[in-house]
């Protein structure tokens, strides 16, 4: 995935601006390509689906479509922040045709960054996150914007092996 970015960098002569929707989980700022974002909604009634993976918060009714909602914090295994907001934000993303909602803490403005300022993910873990979910990082105003690779986050095989993955992640984190 990071390769893709490099290739694009090389191919575009001019410095290209890309627009990102920034959002926060805990203290970290993440970014997702604005083209993937279908809409952003404030809390909707979530119906719990029994026996589903732990990070699947449930399903919501988005104007007649039933959309699964994933708690990104749980999915990425980020430390659960102490403070919990009254209402969450749900980012509705179109990931390769699968419409999926992601619960995040806060959605910021649209962030414009130059493509060539995106660096490949560092080898060391960023914000306790495995680099496989990171597309790249980019510095903005003294903080680090983490570009997430949602297609990896929603990789079905991985989702299925959810529990193992969680265990693995735990192990990895502990060993590192």
């Amino acid at each position, binding site marked *: 995935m990071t390769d893709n970015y490099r290739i694009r960098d090389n191919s575009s002569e001019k410095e290209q601006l890309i627009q990102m929707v920034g959002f926060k989980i805990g203290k970290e700022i993440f970014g997702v390509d604005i083209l993937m974002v279908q809409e952003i909604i404030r809390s909707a*009634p979530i*119906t*719990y*689906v*029994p*026996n*589903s*993976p732990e990070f*699947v918060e449930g*399903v*919501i*009714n988005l104007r*007649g*479509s*039933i*959309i*699964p909602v994933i708690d990104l914090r749980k999915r990425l295994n980020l430390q659960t922040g102490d403070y919990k907001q009254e209402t969450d934000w749900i980012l509705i993303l179109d990931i390769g045709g*699968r419409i*999926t909602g992601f619960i995040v803490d806060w959605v910021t403005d649209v962030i414009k960054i130059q493509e060539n300022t995106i660096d490949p993910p560092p080898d060391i873990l960023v914000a306790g996150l495995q680099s496989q979910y990171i597309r790249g990082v980019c510095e903005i105003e003294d903080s680090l914007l983490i570009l997430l690779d949602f297609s990896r986050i929603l990789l*079905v095989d991985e*989702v*299925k092996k959810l529990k193992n993955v969680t265990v693995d992640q735990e192990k990895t984190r502990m060993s590192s």
Partner: protein
Amino acid sequence: MIDLSLLEDFVMGAGESLEEMEAALLSLESTPNDNELLNTIFRAIHTIKGAAQFVGLEKASALSHALEDLLDLLREGKKQATLEIIEILIQAKDRINLLVGDLERTQTEETEVDDLIAKLNVHLNIEAAEENLDDKTQAIVENNDEETDISSFLSNEEEGDLTSFLPDDDEDLSSFLSEEDSSSFLSEEDNSSFLLGEDTSENNTSFLAEENLSTFLTDENEDISAFLSETNENIEKDTSSLLIETKIDNLSTLANTNEELILPEEEYDQELFGIFISQLQEKFTVLNDCIAQLKITHNKKELLDKVTKALESLKFSANYMTYEELTHFYGGWINKVSDSQEDLTITGEVSLSFMEENLLRLQNIFPQLKIIETKDKDIEQNLSQAINSLDTKDETLGELAFINDLVSQNQTINISNDTKNNDTSNTKDNEDDLFNKLSSALDVSMIEQSITSEPINEVFGALLNSTEKQRKQLEATTEKELKESIIEVKTLAEANKEASPKIVEPPKQQKTSIGTNAESPIQKKTEQPVLDNKKATKITASSSNEKVFKKSIRVDADKIDSLMNQVGELIVDRAYFFQLATEISELQQYLKESGLGQKDLKPVRTFAYRFSEAIISLGRTSNELQEGVMKVRMLPMAQIFNRFPRLVHDVANTNNKKVNLEVRGEETELDKMIIEEVADPLMHMIRNAIGHGIESPEDRLKAGKPATGNLVLEAYHESNHIVIEVTDDGRGIDIERIKTKAQQMELFSKEELERMTDNDLTRFIMMPGFSTAKEISSTSGRGVGMDVVKKNIEKLNGTIDVESKKGVETKMRLKIPLTLAIISALLVKVGIDSFTIPLANVEETLRVNENDVSIMEETEVMYLRGKTVPIFRLATLFSIESNNKIGSGDFFVVIVNTGTQTIGLMVDALIGQEEVVIKPLADYLHEQNCFSGATIIGDGRISLILDIYELINMTTDKQIRKHRRQEQKSFSGLENED
């Protein structure tokens, strides 16, 4: 070269034709002499062939062409549709199917067809030889028979008694005209499609009869004068009694043959026809040149090749136009050419006479071809030639037709002569008389030929032919005569108008064309197609009965699905409105309680009332819409039932069994998606029924049953479900064998088995890996079939039941919901969540007291009418906090079943029954859990739909795990509490 853009259409069209063909083929097996079936098959294969040639598929068209040849023999009764031949036809059908499959996947024709074509040709050749002999003798016999018969009639005609046959008042003329018209329609439909060799030329002349009539009347106005002046001369030349006898003879033969022909109708397209004619003209010139050169050149082989090529392309174009008789004519011609090519290599000599004859015939069929100058001298020459060959009884078929044609010209001349005489004697009544004479002549032949229409057409056709022949002589006529004749025609046209006030529409068209054409003969060409079109519509109308049946639009299934989704939304919205209505009445109540006066409340009440009215109306409309859209998705069961005769035929053959398939209720409609899903299980069941159920003919006879087994396939509606039954009168299910097998497999102990009812035992056949068959065959025995059937049916929220009487019958009963998209369901509440249980699975709902529940093997069970039913708490299964605390007394239990198993689900509350729209869940939510989807209920919240089948599996898995755990515990001696 394959045209890719057309390929898709070809694949779809061919698929339909093949299905039609297969059905007909299979019924042909039982009634081999059914001409209607043969025609259906022929039509199907012909459609495929035409399309294949159009798209440019060589193999498909070659194979279908060979098939057509064979079918032709069958249809003409020259060959019996033996089982062997039917088998070949089925094989060929399969091969075409393979080709179509190839095309769909790879856009190329991969499957080989040559072996089959060779097979077909073997049959064809044998038949061709026989046919030739048969035909010759037959033709000769007919010849002799009718000669005597008709000569008497002939003498009448010759004596000029014609007028006496018909009163000459106007009304009769008009009635004649309309009659003539309709009959020419008939003949046109008939003849255009196929003809026997003998009457090719006549029929084709009559084919153009109407056109010829107008031509005769208008465009060829010059000809009329020539006609009138020349007829005497012609008569002297041509009316020898022998000729007339032969002519009449042929006429009757023709009439007879035509009576027997029941032919598929066809339509034509003026544009295509134009292309066809221009191509014909071109090739005709080529052929003409070739033949001329053949006479002088030594390089005959090359020329013959050229001829063959030209003929091939003519044949293809004729075939494309679906002129079957022409195609045959060309085919025969090509064969002759190749024969003479062989002769050439052997003897170095070629007989060219047939070529000239054929060319002439072609020209007679299509008067548009005006290349060869045919003079009376030529006619005579050809005639004598033809007679000679008739004598030698060689090539009787072709010659007869040829003579026939020539002779009919003579007849025309004869008639015209009468007309001429009359004209000269009474110039004032010229036009009327001409018509009267004509019609009387026609009427005579009509009466004599027992009301077949062909002779009339023939006369008209022949009329044109003779006028054409006399065109050359026209050049001799003076300017003055020409003008006169134009006036003549105009008056003729007027007379015609006056004389036929009651004429039906097509003749009117004719009249107008007469009027205009008299002034500008060039328009004739443009008028003709109009006429043709008119005919085409008429023909279509006559066949509309059949067409209406097949009237359909091809729509992308996705579009229907999206429409269905929209309707689903509407249903949800409707539920929302109902909810709102309730809220309004609650609000009303609240306002009332909060002390609002009656006066203030009134507008609220009125509004609430009107609102509910509007909702009821909305509900009605949306219900109808929902039903309508669902109906769009519905297809008759015939869609899959039609595949089964073939399956039965194949399976019965491989198992050496005799099976008669009876299909009932094939018109029962079912959702398209379900139909597809049901096809496979049904196929398994039918295979089972034949493979296991129905005994071999010997065993059946021993058991006192007829040797042929009966397999009944029946579909019918039962409330919101469709029931499909597969019943065979075979040996039935052997309960004892099941018991033995179950014991062998250590599924249950002997005591348990003894306690089970027959019904329970029968259900074992649906267990994976359970088969009582002694050995594994290609079709059955692995014990997988029924398991798959059961799974597939349960996936559709359906159930399967097996009833069997040993030695009498086995009945499998599938019960499937009508549609997958919208189901009736029971809504239940557990904790704060609501769940949806498909009503198809719900047996009953009970209110159970806690005391009625006991615990067996760590599972709660209750006794329901003498049966033990395990009960599962949904709250526990789903780890939801339930409002139902243990020890709270009564609770609700929903008894659900999947046909084989029954369990009770404990819920907090029953909400009610509703029509719900099923929406899919994301795949990672779908797998490994017990929800088949979700639905949106009235208040906009989501309710998950329980997949009862999975749920039961899950619970039994849990039970099994528990069992194992217990066993392990007891083994290890650990008696810890779980």
